[in-house]
């Protein structure tokens, strides 16, 4: 904290007397490690200055602290990818800015093998953030996520959310995404938009209260398209496969709860038809 304060309020270190020295100043999140300044004015071409080069330099200058730990870089509060770093560095060098180029370096807490370190870092560099879901959360919690701050547990929020979805999930414009099918980890583009939609809906619901002046909340449960689709799918599968539908029933993640109920109903219809044929 003190370091941050120092670096932001004090001018450049007096060791550089050149007027337009281009310096990258790496500040560590761990305040026991002192910040490093790297003069890149003389490096040419500029394209040599990459995030990999930076990481290499840090490891050379602070070998004991960085060994077996992943290094990640933050710029303006977000993890920076290799391409974004390059762009910013080029624009920094071309600018007449006399300030140093500040970058935060995060040293991973976990001790990792060298392959894992490499893997982690590559992920960062390519901009492939493995925690996309956190993306929205870091932007500021909306919907039921807000409840976390007032002491709700994750399970309670999840329960609330599933209840909410079963009632209003159909209200969403994007009907073709099946939220009812609680298979997580599939991070498609449509999935993410629907996720945002439902958060917004939750937010609206919490703000205004149901049935206030939005007709969307005042819906007839029978008219729910997704529920009816589940009903249809379950009945058809149960009817067509008969007893064998039990095998499908057992497979996790293939059918949601509503579909499973209907699967049994379809199976019963199948058996009834069979009985009538027997007579």
């Amino acid at each position, binding site marked *: 904290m003190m370091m941050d304060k120092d670096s932001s309020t004090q001018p450049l270190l007096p060791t550089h007397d050149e007027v337009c020295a281009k310096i990258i100043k790496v500040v560590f999140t761990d305040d026991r490690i002192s910040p490093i300044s790297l003069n890149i004015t003389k490096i040419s071409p500029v394209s040599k200055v990459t995030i990999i080069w930076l990481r290499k330099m840090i490891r050379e200058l602070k070998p004991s602290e960085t060994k077996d730990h992943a290094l990640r870089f933050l710029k303006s509060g977000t993890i920076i990818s290799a391409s974004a770093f390059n762009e910013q560095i080029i624009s920094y060098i071309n600018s007449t800015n006399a300030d140093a180029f500040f970058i935060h370096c995060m040293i991973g807490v976990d001790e990792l093998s060298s392959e894992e370190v490499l893997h982690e870092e590559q992920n960062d560099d390519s901009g492939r953030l493995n925690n996309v879901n956190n993306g929205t959360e870091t932007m500021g919690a909306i919907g039921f996520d807000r409840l976390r701050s007032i002491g709700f547990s994750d399970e309670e929020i999840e329960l609330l959310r599933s209840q909410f979805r079963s009632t209003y999930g159909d209200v969403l414009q994007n009907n073709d995404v099946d939220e009812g099918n609680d298979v997580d980890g599939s991070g498609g583009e449509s999935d993410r938009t629907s996720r945002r939609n439902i958060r917004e809906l939750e937010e609206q619901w919490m703000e205004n209260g149901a049935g206030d002046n939005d007709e969307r909340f*005042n819906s*007839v449960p*029978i*008219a729910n398209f997704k529920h*009816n*689709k589940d009903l249809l799918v379950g009945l058809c599968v149960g009817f067509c496969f008969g007893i064998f539908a039990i095998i499908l029933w057992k497979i996790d993640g293939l059918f949601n709860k509503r579909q499973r109920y209907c699967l049994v109903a379809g199976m019963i*219809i199948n058996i009834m*038809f069979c009985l*009538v*044929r027997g007579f």
Partner: protein
Amino acid sequence: MEIDGNTLIFIIIILFLFFSSPGGDGVSSQYEYNQLQTLKSIYQNEFDTFKNLTSTTNFRNITGLKLSYEDVQGNPDLNATYPLKGKVYDHWFTNQTFQLLPDEVMNMINTDIWNLPYNSKNLFPPNITSTVMGSIKLHSNNKYEKINMPVPRFYEPPKDFSDNTPPWGETYVTEWPSYGELHNVTFDSGELNIQISHIDKVTRQINSNKKYKFNKEDENWKLLSLKIDFFDKAENEKHSINSLAIYDIRRGRILSMTQSAKFHSIFALPHYLNFENNDENNNDTELIFNESKQLLIDYWNASNYIDTLTMGNLEGAYDNAYFKCEFMTFLQLEPWNQYTKEQLKLVNEELNWPLGRPANLSVVPPVKITKGLLYSPDCGVLLNMENVKGPRYELKLRTIRTHLLAGVVLIATEIYLLLRQMQHTNTPSSVNKISFYCFSMMNLVDGSLATLYFIASSVIPELYLPLVISAFASFILASIFETRYLISIYASQINEQYVGVLTLLRGSTAENDEERPVVIPDEASISSSLYGRFFFMLIIFTFLILSSTSWPRQIRMIFEYSAIFILNSYWIPQIFRNAVKGIPSRRRRRRDSNTVMTRRQNKTPLLWKFIIGTTIIRALPVIYVFTYSSNVFRHHKDVRFAVLLSLWLLFQITMLYTQDILGSRWFLPRHAIPEGYSYFKAISSQHLMEHGQTSEVNTVDCSICMSEIPVYVEELPETHKVDQHSYMVTPCNHIFHTSCLENWMSYKLQCPVCRAPLPPL
């Protein structure tokens, strides 16, 4: 219920009655046992006689064959007793001295019907399972003598319970009962259809499902079962015959004779298969006789004919003897000479069990009867057949299967449209605008379709799968989606149930003495009552449809046409409902959508996709049946009705469209819809005072949400910014938020504060 001794005895008696049904042969008394034994012994004697018959000997003591045509000619009251004085039993010639047929008819058969010369050039299909249809013409119904065929008296039912022995002797019936089939044919021309099925396997025991083959001469001879129906065009006079038939594959001849208590025709078949008397063909005659006789003997032995006789057979034979004429049928098939013998076999196998053999099934010719003749010896009626043909049964099934699957596609589309429609109206206020009767009509049609498919699936085992799929599809459409939708429609309209249509139209309460129910049924009780009503209607309607198929043509057509017409008027209730609910015109809806009025749902209740799709889906089968002359249902062609129906549907859609464009009440004169009560109005400051507010505040408390409502007060210009649509003033002068009161009014049309009736919106 308390179960005491009496109840127990009652239950035991009921159970006893249930489980004491007669076993196997249906004999339930000593009398019936004796009846059946008599019948069996008669058959046994006759069969012994039959075994000794040759192509040159006459029948002797065989029921129904004791007299010949010449015996009764000029002596119509002659009794059929054996032996008849002066009758020759040792010879057999094909003339009326020996035969039941007059010489003239025999000549006709010889020259017109069975006139194809026997040679190996003509090839006839070995399997002719089909339903053939054509026309029938009366040749004569009074020209020929009627041959007496007495009914043995032992067939008669017992006179009292102590009766143990059936009476002996025979009855010569002169007055036929008036309630059976007419013992004559009175129409000049009519329609005919013959259902031909093969008897390849027989069971050896009663109640056994195991079947055995018996036919040793399978290449040349087939045993058939014919079901012949013929009737006049108006279907006032119907004749229906079930009979055993012999099919001579080499010659393409089919001979069938009805069997009843008065005519044991099974023994007569070999004698009537050939009418040629030429000497050079004598060998042929004998061959035909012997081979067909062997076929019958094989059949007799394999099926244990005598042992498998039941009371049902006996009673059936007795009924047939009394209620029907006996008929002899002579048919000549058209040869399938375009095939070789091997090809014929291939086609046959492929039809039987489709594996993709190189046989083009789309060009398989129909089974065609070129000429045919029906003669009744005991009624003296002669009939001619014309142009009788039909596709092979397997091919027919194929076309029906395709039609059924096309129907399933239609139903699936309808399900999709309905789901979309349900999604479109997902709030109580939008469901409220939908007509309950509109969907009830559709529901009734779909439900009865499901029942009919289901019944058919157990009647036609070959089409079980496509029929069951159709039944399932229409079942989920009708009883799951449509009925659930109906429940929500009903629930949303329940508070209008006791409000008159005029009141709804005006949107005001004219009289306050209307009775409104205090208790509103919940969804569960609505659904149980609706399901009950649905199944009740379904059963009634299905039975009506099923029984209508046997009504006379005239009545049946009136029923069919009016039923189709009424059931295709499903948009009429919706048009009516729209008018009642008063949906504004499209232009006004657009304009209003920018103002506060958006919160009052102003979209049309039905999706256009749904309206057009449903109309097409429901009209398509009807139009197909009425315009396509060779449709699978054998329905007659009536283009005029199809056009009329389409125009009627078009008219309904046009009405819905104009309601959408011009507003749903455009066709009503303006004075019929007087200005109703308006909930949205400014209030006076005096009114505000009555609510206990001081003039500085300008707000009222909403007693539903307990929060403040800013109101528009006429006298105070500073309140004129308030939107008048944001609050509602009831006739009893209570003020609520618009959304609060609208929500409430979807449950009850009563003021939440003072219970005064509220005019509907």
